[in-house]
């Protein structure tokens, strides 16, 4: 954006007021992925992603505006300049890196398979062979499921909520998703009472990459680096911990949550 702005300013010095670069930073968020981002009754957004985005804006001393966007259109909207960055629990992957750039990670939790407690299933390629395994469409989990469980019948859903609903209804045998999400949105709820994690953390770098980062358009190194620096800064000054502790009983930045 900066470079294009400069070109525009050079070609049309009279029209380009130079205000472009100082514009509000627009951040794309999802609003349907509790506890990372969700909508409150008055329509306002809340959650870990939202608070982190705001904390980073304060750290970078930028004026920010949150833009709600459905997950399916998230990357197209970023590329179409509907907003300048995505803070929506988007994992850093090689596949996505071909289209967009990422800051350093701002958290990383392992993925785990969830099934009925008495299912006797094992979270391995042979253990899930022929079983119906649910994942969210277009997610890192789909990539991993297709790679690691080629013999399983992979069932795709638009949202993680639908995956949980169908698991509870018995339409699928197991589901693969982020351990934290499974814990918070399913296992700790009444409908998830009969379900448990299968053994094994899944952290494959090819699919899950380096963790969850903030996405920006390619060629915007300055903004990307500003986000990375701000993440380090809020880790150091305690802001991250304040936000983290508001939502989670453990630090989700690096390792895996205790007792899961």
């Amino acid at each position, binding site marked *: 954006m900066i470079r294009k702005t400069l070109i525009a300013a050079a070609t049309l010095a009279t029209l380009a007021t130079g205000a472009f670069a100082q514009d509000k930073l627009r951040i794309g968020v999802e609003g349907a992925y509790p506890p990372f981002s969700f909508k409150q*009754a*008055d329509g306002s957004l809340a959650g870990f992603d939202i608070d982190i985005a705001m904390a980073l804006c304060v750290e970078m001393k930028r004026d920010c505006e949150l*833009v709600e966007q459905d997950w399916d259109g998230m990357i197209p909207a970023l*590329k179409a300049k509907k907003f300048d960055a995505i803070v929506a629990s988007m994992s850093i992957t090689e596949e996505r890196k071909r289209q967009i750039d990422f800051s350093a990670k701002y958290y990383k939790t392992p993925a785990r398979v969830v099934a009925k407690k008495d299912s006797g299933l094992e979270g391995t390629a042979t253990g899930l062979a022929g079983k119906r395994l649910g994942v969210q469409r277009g997610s890192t989990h789909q990539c991993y499921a297709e790679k690691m469980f080629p013999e399983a019948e992979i069932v795709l859903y638009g949202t993680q909520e639908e995956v949980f609903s169908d698991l509870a209804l018995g339409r699928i045998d197991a589901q693969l998703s982020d351990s934290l999400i499974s814990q918070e949105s399913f296992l700790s709820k009444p409908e998830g009472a009969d379900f448990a994690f299968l053994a094994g953390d899944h952290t494959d770098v090819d699919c899950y990459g380096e963790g969850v980062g903030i996405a920006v358009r390619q060629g915007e190194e300055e903004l990307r680096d500003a986000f990375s620096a701000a993440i380090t800064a809020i880790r150091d000054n305690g802001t991250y911990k304040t936000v983290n502790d508001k939502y989670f009983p453990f630090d989700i930045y690096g390792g895996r949550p205790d007792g899961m």
Partner: protein
Amino acid sequence: MDLLIEYRSQLWAGLVTTVQLALASLFFSVALGLIGAWAKLSANRTARALAGAYTTLVRGVPDLVLIMLVFFGGQVTLNAIGAATGLWDYLEVSQFAAGALTIGVIFGAYFTETFRGAILAIPRGQIEAGISIGMSRPLLFRRIVWPQMVRYALPGFGNNWLVQLKTTALVSVIGLQDLVYNAFAAGRSTDALFTFMAAAFVIYLGLTALSDLGLRALERRYSRGVQRA
């Protein structure tokens, strides 16, 4: 139920967007439908070919694909034009305008066929009679074509409208916060997806029931002087 009451402002805002979007797109599609029907029945070969291409193309492509294409593709094209000419860095394509326009264009194709069929249903002799007693073209349209066309078109019109009303739900992919988007977001945020989907179901049913009443009143009005078969 408590959740629904808590999130009522969200549901209401979504309902308003849905109704506004449906009405705005209805306006576009009826206008396009009238133009399309006129073109298809016109003696002008180019007009017939253009209208034919329009209805074939639009009716043959999934609605969702068209919406994504207009919204994201349109934005990228606009950005590219801006970058090439240096005139702007970013121009916002309004989600509402993009949604209303796309749905309007899609249903304009269906309305074209509805109106064409209705005009064809008017006995040719009546028009010839009108011409023979020296009616001007506008008068012929107002007195003979329009009242009967509306009567013949109403059942198809009602059909199109009900489908159109529900098609507005597709705009949630472009981030427009219609009833479905807001109900989904609320449902996912509160882990009560079913409750909110059920609420959306009832609200849509209410809207279609209302539409039905309106359509029936219109049918009565335009069937005056005609015996029910």
